[in-house]
């Protein structure tokens, strides 16, 4: 059977499974809708958290980034996993004890202020929408390549599926669907990785294969070979970093703090039964995430070797079939600069702008003609980083069912994250804005209706972003981390570990953290992109890492303002005492 037919079958079967789960776990109460009744087993919750967290970007892009940047890319691995330590140690158990549904609820109650709650809702919605746009786009890319339907059709199908289980099933539906999605996506990621590891090293465990000797009898290890290949062609040596230390530190810190501040991840810990379960659940989530994240470097290394070997110094007329297929989607391009009919893969952009602009014509070798200006670089090839994971099974000549599996896995990764994000948006709108701020008297049933309506509106907006993506989806996703780090994480942690931080301090801190970070990112990406280089950055910190400075500013402002204004009321201080202990009845206070 062809890869396309198999893709239809695999994706179709997985969709049937997700919808079946949604129907089986329909909810009737707000508590079930928001936090699945608070009764999810920690291991199940950990697995759902992992699926929630691992997005289309993790599944499709990270391996590509690592393959092309080598050691420099690894800061993303450290940043995105390290955040779970902060989450487990500083947030999850206390927020579970607090006993509410949403993140803005905590901020609103701890800082006894509607304003604080509304500011938190605004941060949350901004963070979540930037994220969703990328997910919907990921779904579109997968559909357009593997199912060969228009990207718009793909996005609409994705929207319909998410609609079914997020709107009907709420958190309960989402949790069990995400467990299924985790299984699909991890299987889909591991199978090609294992195949490739065996191909290069005979070692079936990709994590170990990465450090192993090659099986071609050369006596070199995988990494030595990679260093040799990259250095020979003039690329940065694969295992040597080039980024400045301060920028690496800032990026790692921003991603870690940002991860811990992402509302759709935090809210997952409201669904476990007990405080100690929240801690355990964060640990399981990280285990499930690391199964994939420790495989990513292996996939990156093997695919870099595969790519170089099957492209560099190969005549275009003898190029493998996948090159032509991806060229047809516009994600690979070749310009025969030296007229030898052979593809040269070298560092630097082959042409300017870096992304190819195709004309309708075909060149003398049958390649698509581009109209970009050529650069001086000897490089003749453009390869979009995002295709590495999807192209791997084809590059490595794996059977068609593996290709179909990867398609189903990528869709699972994108949908699980999109659903989790939709849920936090709808619960924030229905619960934090409607129930807690503007319409305190609405019934449970009415609130549930609002939550579902909000989910519908959010899906439509997300779909619109998927079909008309802002040209900068990758940058926008980086914003989400910076903003979460600079706005939501500090007030939550300070609210738990300090009784002195008050309303004015928290609100001022959140606003200054959010807007300073946003301003820096917008300035360097949109207002003055030509200045976006280390000489012009503040302290040499790139916009990706600026969330660290934003978070520091947030804390500084909150501490200073709180010191000069009134302490929080006694009952708020008692509440802080209460959430600090896992046991039930609270402390005996002297009044």
């Amino acid at each position: 059977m062809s890869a396309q037919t198999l893709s239809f079958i695999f994706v179709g079967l997985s969709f049937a499974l997700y919808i079946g789960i949604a129907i089986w776990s329909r909810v009737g109460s707000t508590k079930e809708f928001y936090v699945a009744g608070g009764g999810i087993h920690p291991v199940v919750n950990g697995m759902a958290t992992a699926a929630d967290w691992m997005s289309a970007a993790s599944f499709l892009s990270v391996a590509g980034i690592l393959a092309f940047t080598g050691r420099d890319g690894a800061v993303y691995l450290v940043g995105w996993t390290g955040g779970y330590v902060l989450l487990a140690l500083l947030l999850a158990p206390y927020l579970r004890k607090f006993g509410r549904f949403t993140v803005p609820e905590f901020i609103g109650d701890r800082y006894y202020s509607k304003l604080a709650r509304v500011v938190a809702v605004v941060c949350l919605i901004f963070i979540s929408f930037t994220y969703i746009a990328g997910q919907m786009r990921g779904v579109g890319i997968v559909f357009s390549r593997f199912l060969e339907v228009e990207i718009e059709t793909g996005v609409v199908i994705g929207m319909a599926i998410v609609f079914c289980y997020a709107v009907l099933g709420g958190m309960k539906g989402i949790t069990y669907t995400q467990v299924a999605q985790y299984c699909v996506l991890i299987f889909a990621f591991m199978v090609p990785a294992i195949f490739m590891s065996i191909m290069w090293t005979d070692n079936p465990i990709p994590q170990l294969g990465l450090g192993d000797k090659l099986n071609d009898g050369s006596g070199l290890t995988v990494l030595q070979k990679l260093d040799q290949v990259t250095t020979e062609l003039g690329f940065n040596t694969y295992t040597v970093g080039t980024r400045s230390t301060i920028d690496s530190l800032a990026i790692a810190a921003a991603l870690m703090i940002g991860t811990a501040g992402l509302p759709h991840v935090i809210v997952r810990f409201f669904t476990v039964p007990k405080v100690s379960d929240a801690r355990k659940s964060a640990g399981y989530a990280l285990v499930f995430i690391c199964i994939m994240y420790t495989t990513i470097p292996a996939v990156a290394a093997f695919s870099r070797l595969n790519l170089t070997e099957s492209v560099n110094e190969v005549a275009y007329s003898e190029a493998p079939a996948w090159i032509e297929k991806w060229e047809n989607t516009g994600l690979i391009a070749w310009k025969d600069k030296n007229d030898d009919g052979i593809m040269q893969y070298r560092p630097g952009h082959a042409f300017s702008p870096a992304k190819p602009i195709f004309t309708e014509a075909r060149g003398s070798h049958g390649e698509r003609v581009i109209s970009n200006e050529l650069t001086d670089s000897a490089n003749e090839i453009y390869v979009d980083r995002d295709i590495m994971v999807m192209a791997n099974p084809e590059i490595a000549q794996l059977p068609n069912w593996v290709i179909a599996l990867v398609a189903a896995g990528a869709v699972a990764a994108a949908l699980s994250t999109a659903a989790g994000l939709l849920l936090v948006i709808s619960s924030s709108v229905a619960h934090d804005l409607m129930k807690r701020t503007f319409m305190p008297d609405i019934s449970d049933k009415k609130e549930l209706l609002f939550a579902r309506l909000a989910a519908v509106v959010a899906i439509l907006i997300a779909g619109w972003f998927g079909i008309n993506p802002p040209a900068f989806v990758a940058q926008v996703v980086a914003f989400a981390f910076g903003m979460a780090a600079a706005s939501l994480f500090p007030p939550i942690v300070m609210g738990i570990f300090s009784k002195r931080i008050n309303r004015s301090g928290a609100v001022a801190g959140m606003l200054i953290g959010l807007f300073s970070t946003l301003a820096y990112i917008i300035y360097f990406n949109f207002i003055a992109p030509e200045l976006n280089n280390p000489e012009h950055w503040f302290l040499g910190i790139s916009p990706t890492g600026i969330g660290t400075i934003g978070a520091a500013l947030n804390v500084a402002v909150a501490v200073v303002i709180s010191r000069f204004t009134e302490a929080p009321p006694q009952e708020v201080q008692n509440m802080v005492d209460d959430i600090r202990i896992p046991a039930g009845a609270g402390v005996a206070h002297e009044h």
Partner: protein
Amino acid sequence: MQQSHKSKDQPETSDGVYHHNDAENLPPHSHHDSETLKEIDVEAYWRANIKVLTVLLSAWAFVSLGCGVLFSDWLDQFSIGGFPLGFWFTQQGTMLCFVAIIFIYHIWMKKIERAHGVDDDDAEHKVDTGAPS
């Protein structure tokens, strides 16, 4: 699971946003529900907790920012399983350490909570068998 915190019977604040006493998603705490904890125990527990956090967060920063970034290049002179050590940390090592830190935290905190009587074990598991609940 509806539970009310009768031990704390405070009025709400002036702008009417603080009502922690009627939270809808409170965790059950079984055997502690009828007791009111003593402030002195709770303070000792909190100090122990801060100590745990200090130790484990130092480990976290050492691994992620230290081994992962700051002295990653220096570590490359050693090697592990075919990897230069610093490179291994950036690709796999830090993540394994993170997992270890979280589980150490879980086990350590369980022990401290039982010692201070502020645990959330189920009533029937109150007799400590050593198994994580």
